[in-house]
Structures are given as C-alpha cells and as structure tokens.
C-alpha cells in the first residue's frame, strides 16, 4: 500500500544530476562525446580527474596484486565500509567547530582512522577468538557500515553546514570532484604505488613464503601492517571517485585479471596496473558523458568486463584454452586406444599454454618448504601463493 511512496531520506536523489562534466557542445553524438573525453579533450577539470583516476587504477592494480597474493583482498572491503563512520564523524566535528566548508583531507583522515580501527579489530578477532578471518571481515565491515549509516543520518540534522558530496562518497562521483580533490587522489595513489615498488622484493617474499621471509630476518608483521596501510591508502584515494562500497573491487578485479594471464609476479603487477588504469580510464570517461551515471559502478564494471574477457581467452587458465586442452587430451586418449602405447608416450602429457613459463602444475611442490630457496623470494611461480586448487581439472 505504500508502494507509490518515496524513500524519505533522499541522499542521492536530492543531489543535482551528475552532469557537471557534461557532454561538450562541439561533440555531435554520445559516442563522439565519449571519445573526446577519452582522448583528454574534455576540458581542464575533466582531464585532471581522468588522469587522477588512471593513477588510482595503476596504484590499485599494483597494491591489489600483493593484497591478493597474501590472501587479504577483502580487508579492503572492511576498510572502505568502515570509512563511512570516520567520514561522518569528521564531518560532525567540523560542523561542531563551526567550519562551513567540508575539507576533503579532514574527511579522509577520519576515514583512515576508522579504517585502521577496522583492520585492528579484524586482526584481534582472528587472533584472539575462535572466529575465522572471513567471519571477522563480514561482521566488522557490516556493523561498522551500520554505525556509519547512523552517523550519516545524524549529519542530516546538522543545519547550515555544507553536506554536498558527503553522500557521493558512498558510490563515488567524479562529477563533483574539483581539480584539488583529483590532485589529492593522485598524490595518495602515486605515494602508495611508489611504496609498493620500493618494497617490491620484500613484499613478494612475504607474500609467497612467510616463514622463509621470517627466517631471512624480514619484519613480517611490520610488512603486513605496511601492506594493510597501502591498501588503506588506495581505499582513501578512491573514496571520492569510486565510492566506499566499491573501492575494494578496484583492488581485487585487476589483480584477479592479471593472475589469469601470468604466473610470475612482475608481469602480474604490470598487467594488474594496466587493467586498473584501463578500467578507471574507460569508467570515469563514460561517467563524464552520461547523465546520472556514477563513476564507481562504471569503473568496477569495466574492470569486471576485463576479467570476464580474460577468463574466457587467457592462455593456460582461460576457459577457451582449457576446452582446447581438453580436446587435445581426448584426442590423445583416442590415439592411445587406437595406436598403442607408442603414440601415447608423445602426446600423453597435456600441453600447457604458452604463458605457463613456470611450472603451472607444480603447485603442491612449490608451496612446500622444499622450494623455499632464494628463487621464490624473487619471482617464484604465482601458484604457490594463495591456495589455488591446482589439478582440479
């Protein structure tokens, strides 16, 4: 009976339509307008935002690769969900201090504090109670998001202060970003990227074999904290463009895409960075020329499309190459049945795809401590990291 009524609290509905980077007058159609923005012909502000988003994508790809290899992909989810409490509280404090204009660095600081609390809580729950890491992430992120919703509803009662943009942090909006916001995003992203590249070797060592890294005298727990901080930095950087509910996906999707294409770390980081940059570039520019289309979902859907295509066509791990291999094995089996053991000796082993330079099927062996030689500290086979179910085919 209340079906015709509207939600009483219209956060995004009350915001002006997201068209401040609207289609350009000289562009004749939507496609032309998109291509124009895509090729950096959309005006200064648009270009700065687009460039910032691309840097964010690169940084998210690189940091996300290590987070995924370490099995901590979902920590980003908790950090970003928790940041709503921080943003809301920072806003309330700011309003209480009588400041009218929202300051993005202050909101980000609040978000960072809340994200830190979330990570510490998850660590504590996993370490000190019988609950698993998965349960810890799910509970902490959802409960803190609930607290964020409460705080956000309280900010609605604050009169006079400039709430514009606060709601947009949930789903992201490049349209409302100023070039100063974009600069801040770019600086954070580049800093996270720089730190990742500087720590590349040690992060790799820790990601693949924590015990070995510990034995070599690496500060494993410190590096773990640093990785969480890097994930947090990317999440903060992406708060405005991608939004807090989806920024975790920007860390996961490019890294997962890259893992389909290669089993080595350096190429994986490169491919992930490229996939993240491409997704941010396409998504942010599409959002700029489409009214009412928030940037966050478009960026994430672009990243997911890249993953889907890779899942289909990637060599070795792709569904298509798997099907080809299956056919070859079946053909070999037929030959075996027809021509005896001689033919089988040549074609019995399933040919691996071209990208599997490392021993793609050597998962169990390389995961054990036996292979903890110096080689795995550099760029061991990526299969050794997460518990990938080798040989499931």
């Amino acid at each position: 009976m209340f079906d015709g009524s509207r939600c009483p609290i219209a956060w995004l509905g009350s915001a002006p339509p997201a068209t401040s980077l609207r289609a350009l007058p000289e562009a004749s159609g939507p496609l032309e307008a998109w291509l124009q923005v895509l090729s950096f012909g959309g005006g200064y502000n648009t270009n700065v935002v687009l460039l910032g988003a691309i840097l964010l994508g690169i940084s998210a790809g690189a940091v996300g690769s290590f987070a995924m290899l370490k099995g901590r992909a979902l920590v980003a989810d908790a950090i970003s969900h928790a940041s709503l409490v921080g943003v809301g509280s920072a806003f309330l404090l700011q309003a209480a201090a009588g400041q009218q204009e929202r300051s993005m660095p202050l909101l980000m600081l609040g978000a960072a504090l809340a994200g830190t609390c979330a990570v510490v809580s998850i660590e504590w729950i996993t370490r000190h109670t019988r609950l698993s890491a998965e349960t810890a992430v799910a509970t902490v992120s959802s409960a803190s998001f609930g607290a964020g919703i409460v705080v956000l509803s309280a900010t609605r009662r604050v009169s006079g202060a400039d709430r514009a943009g606060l709601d947009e942090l949930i789903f992201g909006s490049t349209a409302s970003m100023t070039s100063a916001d974009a600069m801040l995003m770019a600086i954070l992203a580049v800093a996270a990227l720089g730190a990742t590249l500087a720590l590349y070797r040690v992060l790799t060592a820790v990601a693949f074999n924590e015990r070995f890294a510990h034995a070599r005298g690496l500060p494993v727990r410190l590096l773990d904290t640093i990785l969480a901080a890097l994930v947090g930095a990317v999440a903060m950087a992406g708060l405005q463009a991608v939004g807090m509910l989806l920024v975790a996906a920007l860390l996961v999707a490019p890294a997962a895409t890259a893992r389909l294409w290669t089993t080595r770390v350096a190429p994986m980081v490169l491919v992930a960075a490229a996939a993240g940059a491409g997704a941010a570039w396409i998504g942010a520019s599409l959002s700029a020329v489409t009214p009412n289309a928030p940037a966050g979902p478009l960026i994430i859907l672009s990243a997911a499309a890249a993953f889907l295509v890779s899942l289909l066509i990637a060599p070795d791990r792709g569904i298509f190459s798997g099907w080809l291999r299956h056919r070859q094995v079946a053909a070999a089996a037929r030959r075996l049945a027809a021509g005896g053991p001689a033919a089988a000796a040549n074609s019995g082993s399933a040919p691996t795809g071209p990208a599997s330079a490392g021993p793609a099927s050597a998962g169990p062996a390389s995961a054990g401590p036996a292979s903890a030689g110096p080689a795995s500290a550099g760029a061991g086979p990526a299969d050794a990291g997460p518990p990938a179910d080798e040989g499931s085919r």
Partner: protein
Amino acid sequence: MSDTDERAADAIPAGLHEFMTLDLMPMVAVTASAATLALLGSFLVLRRQAMLGDAMAHSVLPGLVIAFLLTGSRAAGPMFAGATAAAALSGLAIGAIIRHGRVERSAAIGLVYTTMFALGVLLLELNGGANVDLDVDCVLSGQLELMFWNVPSTWAGVFGEGGLDGAPPQPLRLVGLLVISCVAVAVGWPLLRAVAFDPAFARSRGLHPTMVAAALMVLTTLAIVLSFDAVGSILAIALLTCPPATARLLTDRMGPYVMLSVGLGAAAGVLGYLLATQAAPLLLGASVDASGSVATLSGLGLALSAALSHRRRGGSGPAAARL
C-alpha cells in the same frame, strides 16, 4: 456501566495509540527481520560461509532492480524471482571463477558480489529520474519510516475482525517468514545438525547436504528480499553475521547456539529501534537511522562477547574450533 464508559475503557490511550501508529509496525518488522536473518545466518556462520551471506545480500540487487523495472511494482513475487536468479547467477559465477581462474575463494567472492552490486547501483541510478519507488537509499537503509499503521481507536477494533487491515504488509510478511523459518529449522533439525558437523557422514547416511544447503540458501534469499524493505540489503549482512558470531563465542552447543543467535538478533532489533527512535531524540535532539542503529548494536554485542570470551579463556580459543 453505560455504553460510553465501556467505550472509554476500551479506547487506546493517546500516547500508546501514537506509538502504535508510528513505531509499532517498524519495530515488529525490524525485529522479525533481525530474528529471521540471525536464525538463517547461524547456519552460514557454522558452515564457515559468512562471506557468502555478504555476497548474497549484495548480489541480489541487480535482480531486484531488473524485476522492479520490468514489472514497475515492488510486488514480492517478481522481486523474489529476480533476487533468486541474481543469487544463483552469482553462485555459479563464483564457482566458475574459482574452478577455471583458480582465483582464491575470498577474492572470487569479492569480485562477483561487488560487480553485481555495481550493476544494480548503475541500473538504479540510470533509472533514478523515472522511478522514485526504489532508490539507492532504500538499498542502504530500508524504509522503516514509512510503515505507519492506521490503528483503530479501540482495542476491540484492533483485535476484532479486520483490525490489521490498516497495517502495512511488510511487517506481517516478515513475521510470517520468521514463523516459516523456525518451523523449517525445527523440522529439519537432525538433518541440519548432521550436515553442519559431518557432511560426509550425512551423505553416507542417505541425507543430502547439497539439498539442505540449497534449501537454506532459498530461505536466506527470501529473508534478504523481504528484509530489503525493513533494514536495507547492506545492513542485512550485519544481522546475518553478527548475532551468530556473538552466539558462537558464548556457547559450544548447537541448540543453544542457534537459539541464542535468534534471541540476540531480536534483542538488537527491539533495542536498536527504540534507541534510534525514542532515546536518540532525548539525547541528541533528533532520531537517527533505526536500521543502522540495529546493525551497530549487533556489532557492539559481538565486540562485548569477544572481549569477554577472550578474558574467560585467557587467550586464544582452540585453533581447530575456528569458524
């Protein structure tokens, strides 16, 4: 006693009448929803699938939006069909990605549900101008505020024929679902226990773990869809995971665990709602979001029990019993 006296004795006091009009139905809705989600969530947590609940609550969104855009109404049937289709699709996608892409489980789940959620948000926003019945706020925090009840002025009117005619449908549906879920769990209890602790044994005895899991998933999807109105799909995750996790820290036995979880969920529902709508105006001068406060309260309960159980045990619990 005259007729007017009788009517006066039967009349609902003004303050109570106002509470019943504005707050009773939302409170019933949020409590029933919290109890149902806590009941079904307890099996998810027991089967170490907390993240799956998270994933489902996010990934039903595009199904809901597409069903809404096609039918133009928020009728429960099409919405449930859409949500089930979306949940099934994400389940298949997660399985395919783990199998073919050999991506670790949590990353595959994270990838699929955020993508589905992004799709849902995009569809909502693109149609935001034309359809105002379903918008992003409802996804985040439900529409408790709209469930007012046109209460009859006397008790006889409330308990008599057609007393609930003026009531919004969502709370009644949620109470119905709570009853159905409780009955289903009670009937299937031996099965659920066998499947939760030893799937291989259960299979060898001719039980069907997959069927039980599928039935639970269908009920959970239904609970998420119906709770969508009450608490929003994101806060539903808090209720699916926090009360069971809290109960898990407090007890080792399955029966008390499930009952405690339901009790904690219901308590969070009632207390959270009253805190947000009755206590907050006194303390802060304005009411705050009720579903957010319910979720926060369930999280605080978990924090409290985690601190308590840590102290009681004097350290970490047995590693083998991790859930």
